[in-house]
């Protein structure tokens, strides 16, 4: 009898989780952020319900500062998979002209991402939302449950989590409460890459090195993806072979110098790399335990 590999077991676990959610909640949605983890999550959803199309929509919280390629990739993938795509933008934020260059990274993220996410969940009355977060990303995630409950105000209470025993998930909740579900909880970054490789999962080309126009802003190298980059910054533009280890708002996503043009080269670089994944995200490094604080406030 063939034994299952670690990727087989992780895959089977994620599929089991997704099937539980669609049967135990009324109105689930998959938060699709276009990154590599979302790509894996979408692939797993297709596997979980094949030959049916996954019985829930995809939702993207668009901060209006995402890389242009992410938007193209997002629209194309949703169509190929045949799932409904909901795009939510915080219109109030747009009207107020909120953006990272004018308002700073944390205000922009709060209004256009955290607040926008709460809005969209409220508007569509989703009672369960799949997210691609992993426990290995950050210390406070190590204790978060796979089924993570949020109050009607979207707050997470780390002291009051339900025990998760075996793979028997208690998804019962009161009116107004919702669940964030993390099917990739037990995956590590390396697992994600290996799975992408094994399953031949398509990811945006931003992950691969290419000659790109970049500038330095707030100590991070960012890509000039459109002309909203302030003019004085644009004056310093240079072309470098870079790639991105995570994808988000282009002004808030640090590019790393790289020549890795294939998946194997990326993985090679990742394995030999000496700083952990979230280091590239501007938002984490403010203060110790900052992620835990953000999550209590409703950040995914």
């Amino acid at each position: 009898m063939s034994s299952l590999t670690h990727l087989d077991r992780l895959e089977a676990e994620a599929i089991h989780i997704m099937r539980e959610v669609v049967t135990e909640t009324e109105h689930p949605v998959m938060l699709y952020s276009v990154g590599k983890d979302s790509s894996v999550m979408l692939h797993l959803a297709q596997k979980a319900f094949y030959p049916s199309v996954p019985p829930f929509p995809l939702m993207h919280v668009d901060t209006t500062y995402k890389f242009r390629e992410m938007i193209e990739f997002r629209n194309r993938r949703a169509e190929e998979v045949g799932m409904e795509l909901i795009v939510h933008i915080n219109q109030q934020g747009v009207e107020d002209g909120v953006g990272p260059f004018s308002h700073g990274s944390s205000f922009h993220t709060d209004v256009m991402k955290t607040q926008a996410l709460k809005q969209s969940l409220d508007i569509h009355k989703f009672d369960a939302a799949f997210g691609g977060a992993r426990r290995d990303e950050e210390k406070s995630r190590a204790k978060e449950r796979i089924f993570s409950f949020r109050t009607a105000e979207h707050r997470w209470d780390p002291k009051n989590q339900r025990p998760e025993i075996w793979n028997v998930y208690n998804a019962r909740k009161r009116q107004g409460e919702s669940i964030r579900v993390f099917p990739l909880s037990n995956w590590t970054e390396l697992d994600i890459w290996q799975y992408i490789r094994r399953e031949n999962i398509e990811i945006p080309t931003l992950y691969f090195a290419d000659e790109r126009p970049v500038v330095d802003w707030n100590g991070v190298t960012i890509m000039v993806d459109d002309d909203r980059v302030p003019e004085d910054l644009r004056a310093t533009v240079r072309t470098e072979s870079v790639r991105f280890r995570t994808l988000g708002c282009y002004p808030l996503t640090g590019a790393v110098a790289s020549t890795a043009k294939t998946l194997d080269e990326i993985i090679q670089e990742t394995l030999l790399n000496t700083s952990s994944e979230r280091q590239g995200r501007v938002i984490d490094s403010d203060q110790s335990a900052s992620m835990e604080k953000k999550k209590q406030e409703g950040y995914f």
Partner: protein
Amino acid sequence: MRLNDDLIATDIAAYLEGHEQKSLLRFITCGSVDDGKSTLIGRLLYDSKMIYEDQLASLEADSKKVGTQGQDIDFALLVDGLAAEREQGITIDVAYRFFSTEKRKFIVADTPGHEQYTRNMATGASTADVAILLIDARRGILTQTRRHAFITYSLGIRRMVLAINKMDLVDYDKAVFDEIVADFYAFADELGPDLEIEPIPLSALKGDNITAPQGNTAWFEGPSLMEYLETVPVDDMRHDSPFRMPVQWVNRPNLDFRGFSGQIVNGSVKPGDRIKVLPSGKESQVERVVTMTGDLEEGVAGQSVTVTLTDEIDCSRGDVIASAESPPEVSDQFQIRVLWMSDDALLPGRKYIMKIGAKTARVTINAPKYAVNINTLTDEPARTLELNEFGVCTMALDEPIAFDPYTECREMGGFVIIDRITNNTVGLGLVDFALRRASNIHWQALEVDKNALAEQKGQKPVVLWFTGLSGSGKSTIANELQKMLFAKGRHTMVLDGDNVRHGLNRDLGFTDADRVENIRRVSHVAKLMADAGLIVLVSFISPFRSERQMARNMMDEGEFVEIFMDTPLAVAEDRDVKGLYKKARAGEIKNFTGIDSPYEVPKNAEVIIDTTRNTVEEGASEILAWLESKGVI
């Protein structure tokens, strides 16, 4: 800085292909801060090179700032979790850590060891293949060691590492190690015969026997901790067990496809296999084992698949598809072990919700038979179970479910208990066995069911329950009614108190307890006859309301008709057809209803016959008219 940097640098493809074949081991570490648990986990992460340089830099900074190891690295800081806990210096939940080596990926459930966190340990143990019991070499086997072993063993872990830590503080003395091991073996016999124990002398702080043997313990011939974790078998037992798959979701993309999606928890499944759907018991054959990347020749335990069957049979979420040759049992009453996990104590008799596999049912848990003192492992009487208490109870469900004993299959015998009001998970339960022996008989799907049997006879089954004093005319009128029904072509049967007491119930007397049992048995016989589609006429004094209610509850809605033969005691005694009242008055018969045993007059009888004013024919006709008016016949 990684073990395999060379291969990663020179031949990444070869490296990745090697790593795709890794297996996965989940283990739990049991111990307290004092035993060096966090240090051990930190050391495993560190030695398997799972720490990035930025993490290492912050670890070194933190070690100097808040560490307990002077200028050395404090590995415990690596596994710190939430901010509040960091301040208290203890971990208070279950945290999951990940690392991998050349051979395996590991998921570590890191749980606190104090008694008040028993539920956290049970949670961590529920998904673990192996437990590491941490022991301070200076202190030996403690109460908490026994508690940890008991909890992890109860949750189904059969492989334990006896990690005797801080050997550096006892000069790596073999005699100390041997004594602790001997102590533990003596205790382990109490747990069960199927426990595999691997004792290893360690120093998590100094790194002895973590990844490789050290000169300090040259006398030790066993594997290092890492060697053990890399080679211990995973999941080796469930593959040979009979096939089980709880159905999570019915997959119906179009009219041409109907599949059943679930994760195989035991055994394997191939196209052509005979299967049974439980609890209905319907049989079919596997047509395909479907996955997105193509049909499988064989699906094995652990895989999430979608199965199609050759027949269109009923099967929905919560059912179990299982091997037809060795299906699981089906029952609605069980003996269980319970670990209570809520601040609000178990309320025996109250309805809770249980979730077992993909099945949710309502359940009543009875008062514990006893609770296990998890420190002394002795049984103690208990009326309820408080937070972190472990006890043995019986429970009843409102519908039958398929199950296997927990010791045979975690997924088929383990369930969570949910409070209906708060929705919180308040306990976990482990099924030991079904209570009624009759339930061990596997349920057969009755193709010829009750409706079919009744239809064949062209009638509605009904139980006509005649109650009243001895001599009130029950049997006389029942017999007359049976004649009338027979004339109309109805299929009937009379159950008479005297007749049944000569056979089925001849072991019963006339005490209150025996009267109750008498009625219980007759009720069951009446139900079976009703299931056979018959009109059953039961003629029993049945003096107690509660037993008549019990009989009523047993039947389907509208199937039980209570007929009260309203005859005053004086009239019945005056008739005294069998001369029984005379004997009772003379004291020759004890416990005679109406004389020295009470008769409780029905409050809600459907039909009341006043036998002082009606003839036998009139009484029977009145009942017949009532039945016709209600559309029963």
